[in-house]
């Protein structure tokens, strides 16, 4: 079982890396935000899986925090983005 978990863990890291790459270089600023949002949700899943992999699933609390902060951060980005004048 732990083999499957490890494989899943690595695969999620690949997804995270792809999302990170998207947020590094993106055609529009919204794509950047999208990449970061995806990175956040995948991180939540990553923590959940790692918790089971390390045999200490009681750390799911941290996954909850990530989910919360990801959402709030997203709302804040959109909110303050309205204020800033678009570049060029």
């Amino acid at each position, binding site marked *: 079982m732990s083999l499957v978990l490890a494989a899943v863990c690595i695969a999620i890291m690949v997804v995270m890396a792809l999302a990170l790459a998207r947020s590094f270089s993106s055609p529009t600023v919204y794509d950047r935000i999208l990449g970061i949002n995806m990175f956040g949700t995948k991180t939540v899943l990553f923590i959940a899986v790692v918790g089971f992999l*390390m*045999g*200490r699933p*009681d*750390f799911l609390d941290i996954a909850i925090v990530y989910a919360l902060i990801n959402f709030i951060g997203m709302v804040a980005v959109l909110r303050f983005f309205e204020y800033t004048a678009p570049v060029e």
Partner: protein
Amino acid sequence: MNFIFDYYNYWVVVFLMMAGFYIVISANNLVKKIVGLNIFQTSVFILYISMGKVSGGTAPILVEGVTQYSNPLPHVLILTAIVVGVATTAVGLSLIVRIKRAYGTVEENEFENTDDAI
């Protein structure tokens, strides 16, 4: 080979610290300086947490049948340091807001004329 496995963590952390430090002293924009300061400090936190790790140990919360725990003391220190970091960030950012209102700019090279370069 063993040598690398013993220290790779610290080396990457040193690189991260220096990346943050570089941003602080080279960035032109004051907000970016604060971001750099945060990166610098966060990397120092990783240094502390790295030294608390015990291979094969687990998080320092008591569970049945486990005897090998990672060291809780660095965790405590860094909890405090994170709070200190966010406090500094808040004060720094509010200074930036005031600077923007007083000078109309937050770019370092635009202060030069008035002897206020930061």
